[in-house]
């Protein structure tokens, strides 16, 4: 079982690298969708085993929600938002992609360096998975920083959220159910709010380049 998890965690990490390497907004959304699918798969496996072993179905329900939200609804929502916004060709990142990827590698090393010492928790061989998934959090964060456009930031945020979720999955087999639900509600609201704002920003600033939002200084 652990092997599957190991593989999935690496795949999730890989998908975030792919995300960083992408240039176009629709590609971000696609990659995000793939990553979410991997996560849903992880949750599915985990949920299955817990349903079989302990007779609990909450992780399976979570898996279903992930599929509904992250794989289907949110990418759709983002696509729609993106579609509403007039397409302009603008350079979207501050640094070029190879450098971004190298930095992301560094982040993985860093997270290994700083998380791997957190001590042995008896009964869990989770450190590697946690390192991988925690790297996703950092990479998502870094993605937000590296992209200029608002959509990129939303996706970055979602990747952070994904990373956190996976971390939770791998480290503790998920949060308590009610918390998970709450988190999902928050997340979906946040994404919706951000979506609305992106539209408004596009109207007001005639661009979704976040760099233009720098009137409030000092």
């Amino acid at each position, binding site marked *: 079982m652990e092997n599957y998890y190991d593989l999935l965690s690496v795949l999730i990490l890989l998908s975030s690298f792919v995300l960083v390497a992408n240039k176009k907004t629709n590609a971000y959304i696609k990659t995000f969708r793939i990553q979410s699918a991997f996560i849903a798969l992880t949750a599915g496996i985990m949920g299955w085993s817990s349903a079989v072993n302990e007779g609990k179905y909450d992780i399976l329900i979570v898996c279903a929600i992930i599929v509904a939200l992250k794989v289907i609804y949110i990418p759709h929502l983002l696509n729609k938002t993106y579609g509403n916004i007039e397409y302009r060709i603008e350079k979207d990142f501050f640094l070029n992609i190879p450098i971004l990827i190298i930095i992301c590698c560094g982040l993985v090393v860093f997270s290994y360096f700083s*998380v791997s*010492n*957190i*001590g042995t*928790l*008896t*009964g*869990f061989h989770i450190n590697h998975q946690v390192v991988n998934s*925690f790297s996703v*959090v950092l990479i998502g*964060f870094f993605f*937000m920083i590296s992209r200029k456009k*608002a959509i990129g*930031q939303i996706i970055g*945020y979602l990747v*952070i*959220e994904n990373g*956190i979720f996976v*971390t*939770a999955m791998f*480290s*503790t*087999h998920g*949060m*308590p*159910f*009610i*918390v998970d639900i*709450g*988190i999902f*509600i*928050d997340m979906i*609201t*946040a994404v919706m*709010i*951000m979506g609305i*704002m992106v539209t*408004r*920003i596009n109207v*007001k*600033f005639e661009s979704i380049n*976040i760099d233009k*939002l*720098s*009137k*409030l200084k*000092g």
Partner: protein
Amino acid sequence: MGLVLWIAPVIAVILSRIVNNTKQLHIISVCASFIMLLAAGFVTNSVVSYGTLTYKFFVSAFYIDAVSIIVLDITITIGFLVSIYSIGYLDEELKHKKTTSKKIKFYYSMMYVFIFSMVLALTVNNIGIMWVAIEATTLATAFLVGFNNDEHALEAAWKYVIICSVGIAMALVGIIFLHLASIDVVSNENALQWDLLYNNAKDLNSSVLRLSFIFILIGFGTKAGLAPMHTWLPDAHSQAPSPISALLSGVLLNGAMYAALRILAIVNRNLDDSGFTGKLMIAFGLLSISAAAVFIITQKDYKRLLAYSSIEHMGIIAVAFGLFTPLSVFAGFFHMINHSFTKSMLFLASGNILQKYNTRKISKIRGLLKILPVSGTAFLIGLLAVSGTPPFSIFASEVNVFLSIFSAEHYILGAVFVLLLAFIFAGIAFTLFRVFYGEPQESQYIRRGETNKPGTAVLIVLMLIIAGTGLYMPGLLKDLITSAQMIIIGG
């Protein structure tokens, strides 16, 4: 009765979605907040008499102890005052066609969503839910920050949402690590229940807990406006409508600090020493104070200035909690209360000023004491109070903070701390004192007199509160703070 606390705001939200008439909206809002005030009084009373209250409700338990009751009472009292103030404020906005009745509907519903999530965050036992509620406060206030819907407001709202969401996501990481640290100790059904974690704190995995605390601190610190994660705060506070700024500064920041404090208590109990957490908290606190000191001195926008002052005070509270001595925690709570009242008064007064002068620029405001006798006085007194001038309440708590720093033998820190505060006073005086004197420019066509009558009443009440509590502390409050301090410190 405690249930009213959660039901009243929900009803208010629902009603404000239904009702269209502005006047009725006002009434609903005031009624709801008044009922909550009564309920809060009741709950406070029961906490004082019975200690911790727990309500088994749905899956999670509500858990109200002295710590939550302090922050809760602040929240609800300020909520009540703000709801009264909002009547005059919104009517005035409406009169000048700056807003529509539809937006007022939206305003009230969002405000009560915010209050609801705030109350929720303060009353739940489960740290995960607490996180959810705090994230919800961000989302509820996001549109309120962007209420004016101009470029600046939108920019502020965007930064607010993005930075706070990311920040608070870090807190979630922290909570996951907390869960991880407790996985052997607390069963999965009861995971993240604060009382269990707290009681079993000794058995948690220390190294995970330390990591967890880092993320918690960064996460809730972002929300509480600690430097260097404070960056959203001046934008959001300055662009939000003033009553909302008052809520943000007087309520929201406390909420985040409250969450951090809860976990701080667990971590310190586990590590049996506040060295690790203390260093971090004090570093953040001091950085916040210094940042505020540097930024205030050349500030040109008075609402931003007030926002930086909030950062400063959150820094003070962080230092106080970071020291984690009985004295300092007491002082921290006390300061939290005083800061909330003083800062909301300032923001409310600044709302009146903004409506009168129509500008946020300090340089365009003159003759405030003549034009707005009450708001001007409130603003002046508030500024003096907020910079730690006796006999106002903030001075009283600052003395306690100073004492706790010095008593913990951090002499240099204490000296730097005191001097930074004096420096901030100087900054505020340099930038802001000029607004009270002189005459406004002819071209501004400003008429004398207060327009926001209910708001004026609120300001007077707040002035009495901050002047009164400067030299007198009700016994009830002292008991509450003492028991809160006992809860946090343990023992």
